[in-house]
């Protein structure tokens, strides 16, 4: 009989470990001045240093160190007063020097933690993930194996190498082993990676785009019999490339490993690859005969010895933690959980906050950004924030609130702003989108509406107030939506003796 996930986590306790690689968004590479822009022509962003030409030497990018320290501080780590780079030696065609310059046993940040919140059967619960270290390293080049069936180097007809990526600064954030998550291990993994992504984004140190590979997660997982206190053999699932996949990879590995254990098979310590379609993993290279990387301190670089005053300055620059900020804003704006989640997921939190700070009412700011602006952005397949500024949206909302625009008119104003017709005020001016609230003009429209539907008017006169709706609608229609609906209602009811 095969165990389901729910059955597996009753019998076995999962222990997690998460390694997250983040590409820093520095302008130049880790050890040379080459540009780091994504998607350039192959091998155009290279120099003797990142190509590892004989004689070339590395020099550490100061901005990368600053970013790493910021990450460490945000993760409550100790910043090492002395840290070093080492050489990790192995051969591969896309490794220009056949060693990777990486921090090893003397990383820049150690011993931190990150508190996350997970959804449980008993509601939201806090969970602390302990951080072992944050270290810096350089990325390798990229190989493209052409021909062959697997797309891997073995069996390929030939390989193409692009060294643009070689030397891009990477930071690796490694957790300590995470026990005690029990059946919530998938949620813990996802919550941790999500929170980490948000923090890194708020620090502005990385694009953190999992789909583009600027943030990649390796999921380590082992199982032990519940209550045994033992630690099982782990597998390492590589390059899990979305938040949802992180959760699915944990579930997939719990099911796979528990079923192996059930049939008396042992878990092999190995690297596995996550399969997006099935949510399962397939074996990669076995780590049983552990590769010997022959690490030793990089003699071409001096140790990193950050100034204490500098570290404190950076600590002072840390932004509000994203989860705390979300909680604060949610309370300030009185937003229900679900709506807050969709706001966060849509990545519109910043712009909505800005819109509100410019005078817009919170509920309107949310609904305009999530509604109309997002709809227009989807049509054009661009980000909402690239279409229109918070200032323009705030201006429109303020005009709605003061009764100078109806929702319908406001939509036209926003369209005009997006079309480049000028500011909200200018669009209103040019298109003549003022709300008609002149009594004389409105009365004319009301009288023609009554004349067109005398029966309806009669029903209103005899006390059927809801019937007025049809007449109001007719007036709005005849004024092209520019009438102030409240005003129309007031005048109409008064005219029919119900005011």
């Amino acid at each position, binding site marked *: 009989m095969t165990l389901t996930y729910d059955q597996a986590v009753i019998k076995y306790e999962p222990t997690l470990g998460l390694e997250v690689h983040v590409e820093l968004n520095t302008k130049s590479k880790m050890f040379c001045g080459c540009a780091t822009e994504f998607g350039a022509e192959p091998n155009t962003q290279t120099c003797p240093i990142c190509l590892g*030409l*004989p004689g*070339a*030497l590395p020099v550490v990018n100061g901005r990368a160190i600053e970013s790493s320290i910021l990450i460490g501080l945000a993760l409550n780590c100790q910043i090492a007063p002395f840290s070093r780079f080492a050489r990790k030696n192995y051969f591969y065609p896309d490794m*220009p*020097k056949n060693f990777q310059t990486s921090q090893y046993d003397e990383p820049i940040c150690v011993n931190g933690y990150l508190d996350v919140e997970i959804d449980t059967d008993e509601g939201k619960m806090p969970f602390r993930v302990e951080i072992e270290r944050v270290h810096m390293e350089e990325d390798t080049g990229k190989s493209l194996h052409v021909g062959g069936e697997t797309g891997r180097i073995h069996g390929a007809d030939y390989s193409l190498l692009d060294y643009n990526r070689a030397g891009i600064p990477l930071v690796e954030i490694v957790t300590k082993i995470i026990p005690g998550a029990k059946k919530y291990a998938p949620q813990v993994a996802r919550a941790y990676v999500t929170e980490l992504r948000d923090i890194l984004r708020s620090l502005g140190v990385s694009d953190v785009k999992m789909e583009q590979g600027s943030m990649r997660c390796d999921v380590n997982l082992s199982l032990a019999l519940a209550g045994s206190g033992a630690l099982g053999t782990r597998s390492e699932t590589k390059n899990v490339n979305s938040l949802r996949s992180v959760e699915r990879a944990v579930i997939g590995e719990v099911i796979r490993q528990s079923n192996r254990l059930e049939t008396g098979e042992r878990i092999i310590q190995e690297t596995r690859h996550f399969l997006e379609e099935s949510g399962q993993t397939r074996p990669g290279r076995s780590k049983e005969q*552990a590769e010997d990387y022959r690490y030793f301190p990089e*003699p*071409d670089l*001096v140790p990193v010895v950050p100034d204490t005053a500098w570290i404190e300055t950076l600590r002072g620059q840390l932004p509000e933690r994203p989860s705390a900020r979300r909680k604060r804003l949610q309370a300030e704006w009185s937003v229900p959980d679900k709506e807050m989640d969709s706001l966060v997921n849509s990545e519109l939190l910043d712009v909505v906050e800005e819109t509100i700070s410019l005078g817009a009412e919170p509920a309107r700011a949310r609904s305009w950004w999530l509604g109309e602006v997002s709809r227009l952005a989807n049509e054009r397949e661009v980000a909402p924030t690239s279409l229109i500024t918070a200032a323009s949206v705030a201006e429109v909302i303020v005009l709605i609130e003061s009764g100078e625009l109806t929702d319908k008119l406001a939509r036209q104003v926003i369209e005009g702003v997006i079309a480049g017709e000028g500011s909200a005020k200018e669009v209103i001016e040019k298109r003549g989108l003022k709300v008609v609230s002149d009594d004389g003009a409105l009365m004319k429209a009301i009288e023609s509406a009554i004349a067109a539907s005398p029966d309806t008017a009669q029903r209103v006169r005899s006390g059927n107030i809801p019937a007025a709706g049809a007449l109001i609608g007719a007036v709005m229609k005849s004024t092209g939506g520019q009438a102030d609906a409240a005003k129309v209602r007031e005048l109409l009811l008064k005219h029919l003796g119900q005011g």
Partner: protein
Amino acid sequence: MTNIHSTAAQMSDALSAGTITSVELTEQHLDQITKVDKQVHAFLHVDRENALAQARDVDAKRKSGQKLSALAGVPLALKDVLAQKGVPTTCGSKMLEGWRPPYDSTVVAKLKQAGVVILGKTNMDEFAMGSSTENSAYGPTHNPWDLTRIPGGSGGGSAAALASFEAPLAIGTDTGGSIRQPAAVTGTVGVKPTYGAVSRYGLVAFSSSLDQAGPCARTVLDTALLHEVIAGYDQMDSTSINAPVPQVVAAAKKLDVKGLKIGVVKELSGQGYQSGVLQRFNEALDELVKAGAEIVEVSCPNFEYALAAYYLIAPSEASSNLARFDSMRYGLRVGDDGKASAEEVMNLTRHEGFGAEVKRRIILGTYALSSGYYDAYYGSAQKVRTLLIRDYQAAFAKADVLVSPTCPTTAFKLGENVDNPVAMYLNDIATIPVNMAGIGAMSLPCGLAPEDGLPVGFQIMSPAMKDDLMYQVGGTLEAALVNKWGKTLLSDIPVLAGK
């Protein structure tokens, strides 16, 4: 009249006075190379056209009244381990046959900036591993004093070029004695500056924490003039010293050692040293005493571990530094028949491209860094290094400079030690501690050994960043000896007939 037997300082004066042009001077040296290099084989590549173009350029600048540096227009021989843009750079290895660097090393950039005329690239032990140039893939260099003997190594080509008057100046690199031992056995002067005094950018690495480029010439003053051209902070080399270059030219001209304490290192003489070497060394000490120096004996008890520790650290770093020579990007490629895998091509290329000594050291270093052996070998060797630094600190507390014979013997016969690597390694017993501690040292001639009529080298070691002290003592000793002999040592060198 200036000729190829003049010193670089004399050539500089003649160029300034206009009694000779750089083109004439360069042609004289190119003619000498044509005449004698078939016998000596100091050069791997003679860069006639570029040298003459550089000389013409300097002459034109001088004619137009531009202010030029002291060595502008003076020719120089460059060890083939330094990258020079567009000029073959082989490091004495088949592995780099045909490689033309796309960039200049910092040393070369500084030489060009100073108008020094680069005649070509000199022979060396493959990747600077050796003490005789017999490990060059392009055949050995012969000692101009006796063509059946070794010119020292690894920089035998540079030293032999000086001794055979093919160039008045040369650049060497010194990892364990590769500047000083060739200087000693050819009767020339060679300086290994303090580690970090001369940029390593563009110096093809053998052992990064030990390698140091330095000046070579036939007099102490010429060496000092060249020292001031190539030394100085370089932001392309993280290990470069960010401090003013000591005034070595002024020190070389001081000719005064009154009140200086000269420490004779007890462990670097006696058993294993040729009697004629010790005799000439002691006679030189007498000259220093006559000049007013005080001689003290110092003990460096840990020097006996220096050689063993060196042969763990240097090969360890080399095994990693030489990993990049894998045929994927530049240099030799063997066995790429369209069917062989990348790994097979790497294997075949490295099998054919590296010589026996290089392979020996790669294997030694790979072993020393392997997991399980690291602490016992590389780790212990690093501890020895710390002990050596302490030995020097204690010794320099008692003496301003330390002295010893540069090598235990005079030049041995070509082929004599080829099958006995340990005997070969022992030749560097007195020079290696200097590299391990990162201090500066010089070798200058102190006579011919009575038993074989071959040059003996006198080594002067100065504390880190006090390179001026060895120049002061060296300049004084040289003047005293020349005065005593009534001629320079090299005036006794047999005249090469030419073929």
